């Protein structure tokens, strides 16, 4: 089922949580709402779910306006950040809840409910924990139960609010791959909220980057990463060096705070050389080297005093044998230039 949010405005007191947001999610896609806290992503998700109502604007499911319908009538599966499992019910009862509360006419028989729950337990790989209470499960297990509970009612869309937010790093990684797999199997239109760019880029078909109640850019992970349309998107998706400068026809002058251009360069797109090799470059002094991890992270101070972050492969680092306080030349391989916004 496709989802459309049209001109959504939502205020909490004087705070503009959502400022005229438009978003279209085609049927069957897995979309990430990515943004820092306070960017309105959770509010948008809750409005789509019907747990919150917009001040103005419409929500459409399959081109049908469902703005005034409550969560109960929207048939959405919602997964909460803190799971929100029913603490006095077992895993089995939790998953069966959505089926058991149906009006008698639509309620499946006991056997059908049983079968459905067991099918889902198998899907979430927790078959032998059916009789546990939520307090007896680990965080990752709880989140999977929450997901199974949401899927039990065969929702038309699946909405997940920071689904991996309260898990530790390892479980998080495991679970998000599992979610991707699950989506490939079930193919239900899904939206998940996250503030973790890696998560958004890895799991989703498309990413909507949000900032201050607005959507900055919507696109495939590849698009938003490589063709960011605003400085915010560039900034938010990965580490970045920012220089203020001026670009003439031939020459880039850095630094020049009064000039109108913002020059962004990702740390791994800066090269360090011992000698100038004819390409555009600037001088810098190495201040700190962190070689733990897949990439070596180097902090240097540019000739005009700003610090610059560079990342390089371990091999390259070994070849160069850089040391602290060494004077080097930094060559930007690729930069992204934005016009400074006139305030």
């Amino acid at each position, binding site marked *: 089922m496709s989802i459309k949010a049209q001109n959504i405005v939502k205020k909490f007191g004087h705070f503009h949580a959502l400022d005229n947001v438009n978003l279209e999610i085609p049927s069957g896609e897995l979309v990430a709402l990515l943004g820092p806290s306070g960017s309105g992503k959770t509010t948008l998700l809750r409005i789509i779910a019907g747990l919150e109502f917009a001040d103005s604007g419409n929500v459409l499911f399959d081109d049908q306006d469902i703005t005034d319908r409550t969560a109960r009538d929207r048939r959405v599966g919602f997964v909460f950040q803190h799971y929100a*499992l*029913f603490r006095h019910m077992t895993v089995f009862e939790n998953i069966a809840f959505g089926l058991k509360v149906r009006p008698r006419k639509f309620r499946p028989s006991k056997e059908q409910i049983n079968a459905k729950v067991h099918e889902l337990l198998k899907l979430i790989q927790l078959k032998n924990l059916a009789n*546990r209470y939520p307090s007896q499960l680990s965080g990752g297990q709880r989140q999977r139960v929450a997901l199974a509970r949401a899927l039990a009612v065969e929702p038309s869309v699946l909405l997940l609010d920071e689904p991996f937010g309260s898990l530790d790093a390892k479980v998080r990684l495991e679970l998000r791959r599992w979610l991707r797999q699950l989506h490939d199997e079930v193919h239900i239109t899904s939206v998940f909220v996250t503030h973790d760019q890696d998560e958004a880029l890895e799991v989703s078909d498309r990413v909507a980057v949000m900032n201050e109640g607005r959507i900055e850019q919507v696109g495939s992970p590849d698009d938003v990463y490589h063709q960011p349309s605003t400085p915010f998107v560039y900034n938010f998706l990965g580490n970045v060096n920012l220089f203020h400068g001026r670009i003439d026809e031939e020459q880039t002058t850095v630094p020049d705070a009064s000039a109108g251009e913002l020059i962004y360069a990702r740390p791994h797109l800066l090269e360090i050389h011992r000698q100038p090799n004819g390409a555009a470059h600037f001088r810098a002094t190495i201040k700190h080297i962190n070689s733990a991890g897949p990439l070596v992270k180097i902090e240097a101070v540019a000739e005009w005093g700003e610090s610059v972050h560079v990342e390089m492969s371990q091999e390259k680092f070994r070849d160069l044998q850089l040391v602290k306080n060494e004077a080097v030349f930094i060559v930007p391989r690729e930069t992204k230039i934005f016009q400074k916004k006139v305030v």
Partner: protein
Amino acid sequence: MAASVTLPGQVPASKRVAKAATGESGVVRWILIGTALIFLGVFIFLPLGIVFSQAFAKGVGTYWDSLRQPDALAAIRLTLLAAGIAVPLNLVFGVAAAWAIGKFRFKGRSLLITLIDLPLSVSPVVSGLIYVLLFGLQGLLGPWLIRHDLQVIFAVPGIVLATIFVTFPFIARELIPLVEAQGQEEEEAALALGASGWQTFFRVSLPNIKWGLLYGVILCNARAMGEFGAVSVVSGHIRGRTNTMPLHIEILYNEYQFAAAFAVASLLAMLALTTLVVKSIVEWRGRRQLVRSARQIEEEQYS
């Protein structure tokens, strides 16, 4: 496994005195415990013992006779009736108030919290007088009530009203922090799963507060049955008609019928003891659930 070796200068762990930073020396501990025990003995166990010993002072026969007196039976009936009405009403009110206060932010919220506490901070006699001033002959609504032949003061309705007033904080107070702490996510989850408002309430909200609710009901009931001051003001002390158990006890006592007074008093004391036992069971069961789940998790981690 290597045998443990004690290095010179090191105290073996087993010989080190386990002492928390906040631990007290033995003398201090005994003084504290002793004080508490003496206090309990003098102010609680001794009076309780006297109640029962006085009740049976003239033998078991007198004890039963004083309980079977028509006036005593009437007092017991009236007490049960007042509690039977007050507790369910306060149950509904308590849950509703806790809900409103715990789940929503609205104008007048803190005023409502303060008002709920009012009966606890006002002297019961004043609570009773409020009703006399409202419903009494010279009261605000008195003339209207007389015209419609309704008697509130010096009658059962007044007693019930006073009891409700005095006991209404108990359940609400017990539930507000609980409801506040639990937040709304589980209810939202239930709604999103297609549950109706009532289904959500009965299947999700209520089970989550059931121990707190039961605890509140127990306290509320104990107070409803034991209330003296407010009820005394509105009752008029008409024997066999408007006397509750505490009032009946007072009358008997003032008439020097000590054995009878203490017999009825022993009933109230028994009620208090039963309440305490039930309360402990409730607390114990609530805690056991937590402990059990914690233990199971531990077992898994180490197996």
